[in-house]
């Protein structure tokens, strides 16, 4: 028997999620922020699969499939928004995109 256990996967997934969150908080580049969102989604996916393993169920895998679809759609729309923003404001700096505040 291997010493590898699903909870270790959980720990990794949580750490990746946390790193993604940190990146989302400190980075100003919208592109990188979107990447961080992908990181967070991947962390969640990993925990889905790990819990699936723990519970002897395949539902987690199905959830991952749906998350992937949503992630693909999200990044497509997100990148489209970034392009549109860049076209209007000539920047992808989230701190300079504050038109709603004024």
């Amino acid at each position, binding site marked *: 028997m291997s010493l*590898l256990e699903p909870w270790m996967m959980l720990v990794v997934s949580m750490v990746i999620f946390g790193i993604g969150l940190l990146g989302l908080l400190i980075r100003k580049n919208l592109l990188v922020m979107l990447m961080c969102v992908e990181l967070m989604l991947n962390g969640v996916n990993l925990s889905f699969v790990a819990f699936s393993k723990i519970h002897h169920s395949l539902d987690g895998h199905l959830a991952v499939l749906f998350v992937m679809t949503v992630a693909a759609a999200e990044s497509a729309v997100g990148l489209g928004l970034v392009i549109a923003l860049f076209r209007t404001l000539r920047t992808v700096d989230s701190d300079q995109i504050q038109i709603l505040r004024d």
Partner: protein
Amino acid sequence: MIDYPLLAFSAFSTIAILGSLMVIFKKNPVASAFALVAVFFSFAGLYALMSAHLVAALQILVYTGAIMVLFVFVIMLLNQDRPVEDFKSSSGIFKLLSGIAVSGFVFALVKVALLARSLTPRGDMTEEKISELGGNVKAIAESLFSDHVLQFEITSFLILAAIVATIALAKRKAHSGRGHS
């Protein structure tokens, strides 16, 4: 006797964590993007370790093959003339607070992960049952197209909506020039 799964897990997880750190700390978005590719590949390995073969394959296909390519294209398309003032612009207190918040978050989540050690299985999809059904892929497919077919169809609507939205966003209006929208 070498514990190959544990060894592979250590390698993949190290690559994943280091890669993610590079994603968020590299100034150049292109470097971030390539670090992200590495993270995605190592995730595929982790999935394979948990015998989630379908998910591992889709991870490479969807994330590395589709999403990352999209990112790289956009980076090239934008061709920023001014680099983003990334790490300098936010204040020290903001960074500190972010650090505290995220570490608290991760701490809490890891606590949950450790709690998961004491969980007992609820389902009946053991390794043996899955191989009996004809493997991971077949089992998931049967579940997806019978019990979860409605969600599957709804997902197709979501993708359609995303396609329409993306085209509407990215399409340059014929009559208006740059800077107007």
